[in-house]
């Protein structure tokens, strides 16, 4: 199956209020980032959390965010980045370019 995202694609993290164990922290939900790397396909941790150890794998990506778009911290420099691994079903495509506060 073809992957939905390529390196360099701009993405938005979905903000779903899903109960149970999820790997996506609240601070990153709804934020805009860029695909940095493809990590492979893994079983969905949300299924593994309830003992479901079969089924199709889900694509996992390493996604980069500009720190000063995440935190209200004046010390963060425009080049400071946060990299976090996010599963495919938590990402949507976006054409909005990520801009650090300094560029806005």
């Amino acid at each position, binding site marked *: 199956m073809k992957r939905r995202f390529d390196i360099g694609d701009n993405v938005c993290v979905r903000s779903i209020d899903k109960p149970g*164990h999820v*790997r996506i*922290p*609240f601070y990153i939900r709804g934020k805009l980032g860029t695909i940095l790397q493809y990590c492979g396909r893994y079983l969905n941790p949300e299924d*593994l*959390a*309830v003992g479901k150890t079969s089924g199709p794998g889900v694509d996992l990506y390493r996604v980069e965010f500009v720190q000063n778009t995440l935190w209200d911290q004046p010390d963060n420099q425009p080049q400071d980045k946060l990299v976090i691994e996010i599963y495919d079903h938590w990402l949507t495509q976006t054409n909005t370019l990520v801009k650090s506060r300094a560029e806005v």
Partner: protein
Amino acid sequence: MKGYHDIGGDKAGVIPKEELPWLYWEKKVEAIRNLLGDGTRRIIALDEMRRGFESFGQDKYDNLSFYRRRLEAMIDILIEKEIITQAELDAAIGEKKRVWASELKNSSKI
């Protein structure tokens, strides 16, 4: 809803920057977790254990150390899946305590 474990970005005050020793029992907890989760057994997945301590309730979660959380969550899931019973666990703990007590008594005689 944000879970009590999801603390990234919260105000944390001063963070202690000290290296804590990795205790022997903590290494055993991690070794058991690896055995329970490996590809041949698949008894408890890593994410299943995380789900365990993420549903402890905040008081219990906040009062336990990192490895105690993992240990307690593994016990909960082993009982939940009926791999062991609470009675078997209590009996095994009781037996170990008796062995340790008698070893302690013998060693003090030397």
